Every structure is written in structure tokens, then in C-alpha cells.
């Protein structure tokens, strides 16, 4: 039977009711409901993206509206790929990505595993741990520069107190070696709960009966952990990595407020580099090409990753 139930009812019911029922077809309603969303996304996301693509082939500069805009073909792309500054930026981004992901997975998983011991009050403490995640990175990042101040900053004081070092002897933000860690620490503080929550959901999805069966087979706790817990949490963990990876690749607000890309360009991650090119040097065409390269990179990496994730899931 291909007829939908309203159709059948419509046939069976008298005049006015039938007209009301058939008033608008489901298909029409579907379009009316979906169209505004698609329209807005096309106007504010896709149209600008296509515009960026077009600008990327020109030498346009927004701050010089009277200069003629020339078509330069792929020159912007060539210049970006040969620019050593961009590769330094990519390295800074990779360093940031690697360490934030590693620390967040390690701490996040450990916390989730501990919380899953179901001690009393674990809900309350989970909620407290989650708090930093939801806060504004810009506002919080700005305040962390206060915590990081030599001498008067709480962070320096605590580190000094625990390690015996003089709290005014180091500056997390002004030191070239420490600045990358300054942003990693704050990002880890903010986003470990994200990984933790996802891992916790993974741990809670494992049925008790599997462990009970393993217990009957006299498998050691260690073995149970590696053969049951880890493989079953892995898809969840990979999902967390996907989200954090994309977010941290785009990372802008936290780093701008913490270090502003400095000292020098040690913490100049891609978004900050791009912002400097586009909104400080006003190299609109060049930065559009840069933006396209970044977008393709994220999109490409994410697609490959999602394929891998689906493979793990279906295993």
C-alpha cells in the first residue's frame, strides 16, 4: 500500500474534513520547513565561501578600494605554499593540537574511568569539573593572563610554592619556550571535561554482563581493561578527538586573549596568522587563498577521519 494513512482517512471522511486534511501536501510542508534554513545557510555560509574562493584569485586589498583589482590566477596559492612563515604557523598549530589532544585524552579518560567507579556524589563533582568548558574562552583567557603574571599571579605562586622556584623568575606568556605551554594548559583546563563526558558515556554503554563473563573466565582486571574497556570506549574517544581536533584547528579567541600569537610568533596558530594577514595587513586576496587552503585541509582531514571512525564503529 503506497497510500499514507491521512489519504486513506481523507477518502473515508466527508467533504470539509477531507479538504482540511489534504490542504497542504507533506512534500510542500517539508519544503516550506526546510527552505528558510537552507536559504540562510546559503546566504551566510556558502555565498561567502564562494566569494572567498573568487577573491583568492585576485590581488584585492579591502583597505585600498580605489586600486584596480587584478586577476592573478594561482599566484596567491603558490606564494602561500612557498612561504616559510606559514609553515612555522602550521608547526605551532600542530604542536598545540598534539599536546592538547594527548593531555585531554589522558586526563579525560582517567577521570571518566575514576568517575565510573560510582563513588558517592560523583554526579555533583562531574558537574563541577564540567563548568570551565561552557565559559567564554575570550573572557576566561583574558583572566588567565592575570593568573600567569610573574610574582602576583596565582599560577606562578602555586607553581613556585610546589617547585620551590621563585614565582617572579618565569613568565608563562613572555617566555618563548613557555608560551606554547601557556595556551596548552588553559585549553586542557577548559576542554578535558569534554573528553571526559564522552568517555564516561562510552564506559557506561558497556554492559555489565561482558565483565561478568570475563570474570567467570578468570581474565585478570588488566586484561579486561585492554580487551573490553579500551576497545569499547575507542569509538567514543575517536569522536571526542574529531570534535576537539576541528575546534582546536580553528582556535582563535583563547589564544588571541592569552598570548596574541606572541612572543614574536611562537604561538601564532593558523587562525591568528590568518587574522593578521586579513585584518591587519589587509591582504584580502592572499588571505582568502589562505582561508581556502585551511578549509580544504580541515574538511579533508575530517572526512578521512570520519571514514576511519566508521570502520572502528562497525568492527
Amino acid at each position, binding site marked *: 500500500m503506497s497510500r499514507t494513512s491521512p489519504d486513506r*482517512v481523507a477518502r473515508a471522511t466527508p467533504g470539509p474534513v477531507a479538504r482540511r486534511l489534504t490542504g497542504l501536501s507533506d512534500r510542500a510542508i517539508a519544503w516550506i520547513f526546510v527552505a528558510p534554513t537552507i536559504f540562510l545557510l546559503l546566504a*551566510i555560509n556558502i555565498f561567502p565561501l564562494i566569494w572567498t574562493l573568487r577573491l583568492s584569485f585576485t590581488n584585492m586589498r579591502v583597505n585600498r578600494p580605489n586600486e584596480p583589482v587584478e586577476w592573478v590566477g594561482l599566484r596567491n596559492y603558490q606564494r602561500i605554499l612557498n612561504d616559510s612563515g606559514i609553515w612555522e604557523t602550521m608547526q605551532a598549530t600542530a604542536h598545540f593540537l598534539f599536546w592538547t589532544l594527548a593531555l585531554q585524552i589522558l586526563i579525560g579518560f582517567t577521570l571518566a574511568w575514576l568517575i565510573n*567507579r560510582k563513588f558517592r556524589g560523583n554526579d555533583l563533582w562531574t558537574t*563541577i569539573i564540567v563548568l570551565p568548558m561552557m565559559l567564554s574562552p575570550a573572557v576566561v583567557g583574558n583572566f588567565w593572563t592575570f593568573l600567569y603574571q610573574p610574582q602576583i599571579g596565582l599560577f606562578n605562586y602555586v607553581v613556585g610554592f610546589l617547585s620551590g622556584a621563585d614565582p617572579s623568575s618565569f613568565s608563562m606568556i613572555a617566555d618563548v619556550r613557555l608560551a606554547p605551554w601557556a595556551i596548552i594548559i588553559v585549553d586542557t583546563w577548559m576542554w578535558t571535561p569534554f573528553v571526559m563526558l564522552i568517555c564516561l558515556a562510552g564506559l557506561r554503554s558497556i554492559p555489565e554482563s561482558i565483565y561478568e563473563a570475563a570474570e567467570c573466565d578468570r581474565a585478570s582486571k588488566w586484561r579486561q581493561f585492554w580487551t573490553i574497556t579500551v576497545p569499547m570506549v575507542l569509538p567514543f574517544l575517536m569522536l571526542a578527538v574529531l570534535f576537539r581536533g576541528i575546534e582546536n584547528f580553528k582556535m582563535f579567541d583563547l589564544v588571541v586573549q592569552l598570548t596574541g600569537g606572541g612572543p614574536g610568533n611562537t604561538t601564532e596558530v593558523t587562525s591568528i596568522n590568518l587574522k593578521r594577514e586579513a585584518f591587519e595587513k589587509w591582504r584580502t586576496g592572499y588571505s582568502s587563498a589562505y582561508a581556502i587552503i585551511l578549509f580544504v585541509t580541515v574538511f579533508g582531514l575530517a572526512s578521512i577521519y570520519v571514514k576511519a571512525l566508521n570502520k572502528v564503529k562497525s568492527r
Partner: protein
Amino acid sequence: MSSYSITEPSKPQKWIAGSLVIAYALITLMPLLWIIATGFKSPADSIAYPPKVFFTPTLEGYVNLFTTRTRQTAEFLAANPPQTWYAEIVAKYDMVIAGPSRFGERFLNSVIIGFGSTFLSIFLGTLAAYAFSRFKVPLKDDLLFFILSTRMMPPIAVAIPIFLMFRQLGLSDTHLGMILLYTAVNLSLSVWLLKGFIDEIPQEYEEAALIDGYTRFQAFYKVVLPQAATGIASTAIFCLIFAWNEYAFAVLLTSGNAQTAPPFIPTIIGTAGQDWPAVAAGATLFLMPVMVFTILLRKHLLRGITFGAVRK
């Protein structure tokens, strides 16, 4: 013994796990408590060494946050004694209050843009989510993936053309422009989350309503909407929090008129560098609503932050 499951963690295990988690929670809470405490410190206390845990609370930070002040001579102050409690606070520093600061405006902008964009993204998102959940939309999976992929773009990457586009349309630095922009960014979240919530409502309810003579439209707003109320409310809070926290677009596309609080708070400066008690006071007022919402949302948190990919 036999009443316990063999997989139940033992007492000492729970005890150790509990103490470790509580220790982490307390460490993680420190910066937040420090923000709140600094808001009630005097400027001198805020930069004391060693950092002060105990201090006499004062509202100086909050007064400085909401006012602009000018220095006056001792004679002027003697001739014009302070009339209000807040004038009295600044008089200690030989200052008089010159007028309100822009914090109030910026905070109000955050409220207007936050609620405006949340309303719009929920309104459009609910409609689209319902259609995706219940009807055969052509290319459904592609459209859904397209909606999600808009979230992968770095904001700076689309900021250049949006900047140009808004300038052309007269939307730069306006509330409407920011509301539309945040709505577009939030739509991916609201469509995906709401689709999940609507998927969970059994279709039989609507079918029963249709048989009772409701139109599709009536079935949608009289049957589905009330059922989805909790889901809609929590999605709305997620959208609100995103718009509330957003910084990149706000700092690039707004300045005098429609600037929200996140780009403004870091620019609060005193006589020497940043006025930390005032910054902390502003941050406290700004972060507090989000903390309350987070606690209210805790059951749906995971679902919200993963766009509905993980449901508990």
C-alpha cells in the same frame, strides 16, 4: 558478599577514585573562584604578593566596572562631599564619577543578540528538524551533512566576505547583522540536536492526531511541539551559550554600536594596565548565567556538545 555484583568496585577503590576526582575538581575550580574573589578585592589587594586568599571585600571593582571616573583635587572633594555609597568609594582615590561606563550597553548587546539569534535558530531549526525527521526530503543525508559542515569553517575564513557583504548591505556593526550571523552558525547545532529529539517522539501520536482530523500543521504544533519542549529548551540554551560566548566574529565585525561583552571585557583598563578587580567583576557577571545554565543542563550536556552524536 553474594548480594554484590562481582563487577561492583570495592569500598577502598571507590574511596581512592572519589578523592582523586574531588582533588581534580577543586583544582579546576580554583581559577573560577579566583575570578569571583578578585571581583571583590581592592586594586591593591588584587596585585598583592603573596596572592591574598583572605581580604576585606569591597565593591570597588563593580563600581569601576560600571562607571568612568575623573581625578579631582582635594579641595574640590572637600567642597563637594560624595552623595552616594559608590561616590564615596571612588572619593578614597581622589576621584569623582564622571558617568556610566559602556559595560551596561555591551552586556545588553550580548543579551539582545544572544536571545534574538537563539529565538531565530530555534524557530528555523525546529521546522527543518521536523521536516528532516518525518518527511522524505530529497538528498536528506547530503543536506544534513552540508548543514553540519558549515560548522567546520574557521570563523576568520568566512569573516572577510561577510565583512564585505555586511558593509554592502548596511549590516556591519548592527544587532540585526550579528543576530543573522549567529543564527546561521547555530543552525547546524539546532537542526542536528532537534532532529534527534523529534526522532525520539513516536510517530503514532501524530498519526492519531491526523486521523482525528488535525492537519499536518496542527499535528505539528499541537502534538509534536509540546512533546519536544524539553529538547527545544535545552537546544535553546546551547544556542544561547554559543552566541553569548562568541568572540571572533564579534571582535572583527562590531565596534561602536553592536559590540558584545566578550570583546569588551578584556579592554577594561584602569590607571595602570588592566583594572583586574573591574575585569573580574565584569567576568563574574558575564560567566555566572552560563554556570547556572550548565548546572541546569547537566543531563543534556553531552548530547548538546556532540551535536546529538552521543546520547545517554
